[in-house]
């Protein structure tokens, strides 16, 4: 489905398409970019977009954004995700960047924003703690002021790609006596500081994507406090609420449906009754994607007219993750017996993997995508949010 585009927007779309085609690095096209690339490899596309001036579509022009309209941002999002490019690190560009340019002081803007844009600094997110889950207000990591420093002690967890990170933005408790959501501050911590330890968490797909971070007497200069002390919850909510125009993952789902169709064609004879069942299941998911995409386009059009999208982001999160989980499950089913095998991590060319290449990442994708309905505010929490908005409770 395509937006009915103005000639200018259509030209922009063609430009984006051509740019991706001509510049997306071949070496990033590995079976599973999320796990199979080195830090350096995964930064290649980031740096190309940076040079082009396209790295931060949502940022205001004065901080290095391209100054696009909502429609252009949406087109860019749609084209990059359909082409299957690895998105630039969200924690840097989409998450901490806007917090810094909105709530940070001039020195912080000057120090951090350019290095975020260039990819020089890799950021990770210190929100979750053991026991906190979707209830982020229960932060227990403590920061105690001592002269010009905070002394930070605590334990962060589920920290994505912290193994590559130069910096972490953390929620820390600076006032232990305040109510849960007060007394929290937003602190930027250098990962090279003494007392910071990263411990890998291996997930059920065998990959190393997330980590525990232990903070032991870490000395953080007070100039790394963003905004006011004890006001961190406001910034944290701003960050969570800084919803991207596209959370539905239409492009990714569309690509994986194409992959699924190829696999079904290759693996299941047309005279096998399972074939028709797969066609039916694929059709239902295609229609789910189509309806979600039509909804997304409707919301984008409304936003461009200044209409509040309401709880749309939660709707996109729920349906987008449910759909992608369904697709990865169908792919895993479609490859039949090969679904029993799993690649070993870290990936090595010397390790044998049975079956056709299109099956090699099916198991890990299936397993890994179970996280989607849990992370980023579980789908149950998203339904609570919509219930509040819809029921008016």
């Amino acid at each position: 489905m395509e937006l009915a585009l103005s000639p200018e927007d259509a030209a922009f779309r063609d430009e984006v398409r051509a740019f991706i085609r001509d510049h997306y690095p071949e070496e990033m096209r590995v079976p599973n970019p999320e796990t199979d690339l080195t830090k350096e490899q995964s930064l290649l596309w980031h740096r190309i977009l940076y040079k082009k001036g396209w790295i931060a579509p949502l940022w205001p022009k004065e901080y290095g954004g391209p100054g696009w309209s909502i429609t252009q941002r949406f087109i860019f999002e749609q084209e990059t995700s359909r082409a299957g490019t690895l998105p630039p690190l969200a924690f840097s560009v989409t998450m901490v960047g806007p917090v810094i340019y909105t709530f940070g002081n001039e020195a912080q803007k000057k120090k951090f924003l350019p290095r975020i844009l260039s990819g020089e600094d890799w950021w990770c997110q210190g929100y979750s703690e053991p026991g906190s889950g979707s209830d982020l207000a229960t932060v227990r990591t403590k920061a105690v002021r001592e002269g010009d420093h905070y002394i930070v002690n605590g334990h962060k967890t589920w920290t994505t790609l912290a193994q590559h990170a130069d910096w972490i933005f953390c929620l820390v408790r600076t006032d232990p006596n305040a109510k849960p959501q007060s007394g929290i501050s937003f602190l930027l911590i250098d990962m090279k500081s003494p007392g910071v330890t990263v411990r890998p968490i291996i997930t059920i797909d065998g990959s190393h994507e997330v980590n525990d971070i232990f903070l032991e007497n870490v000395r953080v200069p007070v100039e790394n406090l963003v905004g006011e002390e004890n006001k961190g919850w406001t910034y944290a909510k701003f960050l969570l609420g800084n919803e991207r125009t596209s959370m539905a993952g239409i492009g990714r789902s569309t690509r994986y449906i194409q992959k699924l169709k190829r696999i079904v064609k290759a693996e299941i004879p047309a005279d096998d009754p399972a074939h028709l069942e797969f066609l039916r299941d694929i059709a239902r998911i295609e229609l789910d994607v189509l309806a979600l995409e039509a909804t997304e386009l409707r919301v984008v059009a409304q936003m461009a007219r200044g209409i509040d999208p309401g709880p749309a982001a939660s709707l996109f999160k729920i349906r987008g993750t449910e759909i992608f989980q369904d697709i990865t499950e169908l792919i895993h089913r479609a490859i039949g017996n090969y679904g029993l095998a799993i690649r070993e991590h870290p990936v090595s060319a010397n390790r044998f993997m049975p079956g056709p290449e299109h099956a090699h990442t099916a198991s890990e994708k299936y397993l890994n995508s179970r996280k989607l309905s849990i992370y980023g505010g579980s789908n149950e929490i998203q339904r609570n949010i919509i219930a509040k908005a819809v029921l008016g409770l």
Partner: protein
Amino acid sequence: MDIQFTEEQELLRSSVQRLLRDQYDFEARRKIVASEEGFSRTQWEAFAELGLLAAPFSENAGGLGGGPLSTMIIMHEFGRHLVVEPFLETVVLAGSLIEHAGTPEQQQAFIPGIVDGNKIWALAWTEEVSRFDFANVTTTARREGNDYVLSGTKTMVIAAPWADYLIVSARTSGDDRDRAGVSLFVVDRRAAGLDLQSFKTIDGRRAAEISLREVRGQLLGREGKGVALLEAGRDRAIAALCAEAVGAIGELNSATLDYSKTRKQFGTTIGSFQVLQHRMVDMFIAHQEALSLMQHLSLNLSAGDPGLSRLASGAKSKIGYAGKFVADQAVQLHGGMGMTDEFNVGHYFKRISSINIQFGDPAFHVLRYAQLDAAA
């Protein structure tokens, strides 16, 4: 994307809304359904006066040129009020078949009667074993002079007891279930040899089984090409039915939400139970998605998109499942109230059940969608 209605479209919508709000509340509808005839000629005339029966026709054909979007607007409001009058049968189905396939003489002969509200039409394609297959036709037609003579039995013809004219599919050549060789005919409902047995439908309409014994009819469209005409007609009917379903879904959702805020159980409103809250969230999501797909389909129908028929099947299926889910849950959340004939929720349930049968159920259409893809 969200349709930004033109001023004319907004005007159409608000005038239909006003008419139905004033004259077609649930009590008024009950009386219409319970009446001897089972529909209201007064309402039908009001629709004609408001220009609804002219809205989708092209200006050439004597209409207002509103096209599929005007149909969408009207049917969406009709869905909200459970309108039983045969707009779908007369305007969307018969009207568009005459406009698309009729000779200039036929257009001149029949469209004015539709537009001014004088004539009601019904489409007779279903037979005993046809299920959802237009090509499964045993009724026969043979040429006699300029006319044809039809024999056979048609069943489940909605609105036939109200109709002045029928469009009947009959076989002019080929074997049962052959796609080729099915033709369409205009038949006068009071023609000699035509017998009607009427009955009620679950959604408060009337339908009939029709037996044809050497009944004279005139050809509509090219001989032997009836299936393609019916398929195009079904695409238009689906867009209209989807709009009607979305209207009904929206009403069910707001009725359920209101009920959940007032109805108390165990000392608290039922809307405070998390299980029911999440159920209503899923109903909300189903409505949002159905609404988007409805708009997408009608826009594509307006644009004459080549993949339209596949899209129509897809939308019929997805919106059908959405409607079924919402209707099931609306009855469930209303408890005993949802089961009673006196209350509106059960009637929305039944209309959605009917929509999910007319022209093929969601399972039929999702397979059609899948197979048109596999064939492409």
